[in-house]
């Protein structure tokens, strides 16, 4: 348990379509025909979600949020996966998939309530086909699997009708790969040939624990023993993430069953705003990963290979500023819930005992504040 038995191999046979230097590389298994304009669109996504993250961290420092889980360094994994989804596909995030939420057109402010403490999520997962954040590690992979069972029962796989066939995308982390729930979801997805894609962001750390604490072999290998393919991709390469997730989701929609994708990336920031990584990892680790930054390589490609010029980047910057302002002011304006709202929606129909508690509470609060 306690020695690094085998260190996980650095980055063996990892699918990469865009090098850290911004060179496109082809991979016959994952052809990606994508226009430079579309790549520019991905760049925009990457920059904007990083900006949302930056703002949220600032808001936490200012006491406007109780906590924030930063996605810094994982933008490519989340945008690539998120943009591979079709509108009618369903995504099940952890608590860190702000980038995926962006791709699902979820207003960033919708995510802030949980971290500000004004609600517990409070949105309808079906509105944008993006589930509530799930904090209990791994639990959402079973929800995704069950949702996929529903998809099958609705006859929404393998019909060949693109507007009908539906896939489910379940996110989880390297640490989560150790949870019973996650492995049970592999069992069910494999045995049931379910239309679910498991997207593991291996950001190398589960709070203070390096991934070797969870496994001595690369995580993508976990899938084969459950009867479906696993593949490791460069999680800092938005093109690889897009192409491979797209393929996996297509397979799912076509009744080809589940895939496990391990996006090999790095958590550049502390686990959350509460965390102090200096206690458990060297700053130099982050420095080496900086060289693989998910945004820089796209910017390099766009400038060097696609002839994008400063005005484009300025536009995106300007848009980021506007978005930042939206997040800043919107966060402060998030309404505080009414005290008695704690009693709402515990049940669809409120039992008498609870109603009594609620009424006592209301009159008591009135009394005290009177």
């Amino acid at each position, binding site marked *: 348990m306690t020695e690094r038995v085998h260190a996980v191999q650095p980055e063996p046979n990892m699918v990469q379509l865009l090098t850290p230097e911004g060179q496109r590389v082809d991979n016959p298994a994952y052809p990606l025909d994508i226009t430079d304009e579309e790549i520019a669109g991905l760049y925009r996504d990457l920059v904007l979600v990083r900006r949302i993250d930056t703002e949220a961290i600032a808001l936490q420092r200012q006491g406007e949020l109780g906590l924030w889980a930063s996605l810094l360094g994982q933008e490519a994994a989340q945008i690539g996966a998120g943009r591979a989804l079709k509108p009618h596909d369903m995504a099940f995030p952890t608590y860190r998939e702000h980038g995926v939420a962006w791709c699902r057109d979820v207003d960033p402010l919708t995510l802030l309530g949980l971290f500000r403490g004004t609600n517990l999520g409070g949105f309808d*997962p*079906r509105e944008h086909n993006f589930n509530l954040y799930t904090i209990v590690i791994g639990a959402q992979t*079973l929800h995704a699997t069950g949702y996929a069972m*529903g998809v099958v029962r609705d006859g929404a796989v393998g019909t060949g009708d693109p507007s009908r066939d539906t896939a489910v995308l379940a996110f989880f982390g390297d640490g989560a790969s150790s949870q019973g729930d996650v492995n049970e979801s592999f069992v069910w997805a494999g045995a049931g040939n379910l239309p679910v894609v498991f997207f593991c962001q291996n950001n190398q750390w589960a709070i203070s624990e390096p991934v070797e604490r969870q496994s001595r072999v690369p995580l993508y290998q976990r899938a084969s023993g459950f009867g479906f393919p696993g593949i490791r991709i460069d999680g800092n390469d938005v093109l690889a993430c897009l192409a491979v997730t797209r393929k996996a989701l297509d397979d799912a929609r076509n009744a080809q069953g589940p895939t496990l994708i391990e996006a090999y990336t790095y958590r550049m920031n502390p686990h959350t705003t509460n965390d102090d990584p200096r206690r458990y990892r060297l700053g130099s680790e982050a420095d080496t990963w900086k060289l693989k930054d998910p945004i820089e390589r796209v910017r390099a490609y766009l400038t060097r290979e696609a002839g994008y010029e400063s005005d484009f980047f300025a536009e995106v910057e300007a848009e980021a500023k506007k978005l930042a302002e939206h997040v800043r002011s919107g966060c402060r304006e998030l309404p505080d819930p009414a005290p008695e709202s704690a009693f709402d*929606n*515990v049940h669809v129909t409120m039992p*008498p*005992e609870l109603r009594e508690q609620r009424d006592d509470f209301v009159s008591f609060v009135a009394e005290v504040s009177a």
Partner: protein
Amino acid sequence: MTHELGNMTMAKALNEGLRKAMEDDPKVVIMGEDVGKLGGVFRITDGLQKDFGEDRVIDTPLAEAAIIGTAVGMAIRGYRPVCEIQFDGFVFPGFDQIVNQVAKFHNRSAGLVKMPITIRIPSGGGIGAVEHHSESVETYFAHTAGLKVVACANPSDAYWMIQEAIADDDPVIFIEPKRLYHAGKSEIDDEPTPLYQARVLRPGAHVTVAGYGMTVPTLLEAAKVAADDGIELEVLDLRSVSPIDTDAVVESVRRTGRLVVVHEAPQSFGVGAEIAARVTQRAFYSLEAPVLRVTGYDTPYPPSRLEHEWLPNLDRVLDAVDQIMEY
């Protein structure tokens, strides 16, 4: 007037109730271990897979957390899952998904998503089983906000309550007293009683005895015996453990002044304690005696050779009645 179904056992009544629920709503699916061809180890789902297909009666892999967790996902997709836990003691691997997800999801979504999940748990002892097959686990769920917990005690309630539980948009833990599955046949009422209402099974002036599920027949027996000694027991079948029909209990106690609560689950921090606390608070001046509890003891469920003395049996209930009459 009674239901055309006529006489049947509780096991058959549950089977018919499930069948009716599946006929009434195509979104109802049954999930669990061995619920298909086998019809469950108690045959409660007997014939349902044959008639409704493998897509609606699902033999699942052997994993309770996944049975519950996938039910949550199916509910998000618009289904109405009925999960079978094979035996009471095996609900615990699914406990996290029940307490952290099923119970909370509606609340976390600000009421936008419903969790109309029914979790059937064959419960309780007295069947001579090995360990983990005779537990009473209702208290854990009753203490969990967001869940409702009910227990049927006769075939008619079994038939109606399972349908009401499945039709309820809230998650319901459905306690099935396995000892009563085949304890005899009776008529199915023509009409259901509202799911969360208690029922007076026998009026009496001296002592209220309240229970649910497996212990109800013992209470009725006790009432017969006590009557011979001139003590009239008012027998209350709570039917719902959470919410408790507190008004019904208090109303009865206001008349009798005495209450004995009976359940198989361990006594401490059990259902009896909550009822005692509520009734004492609401009927303080009506009580002639403290609320007494006849329950399982604060031990693991014993080896089956000991269970009949360990369980809240007729003698123990009558003893409590004697004690409470002495106040």
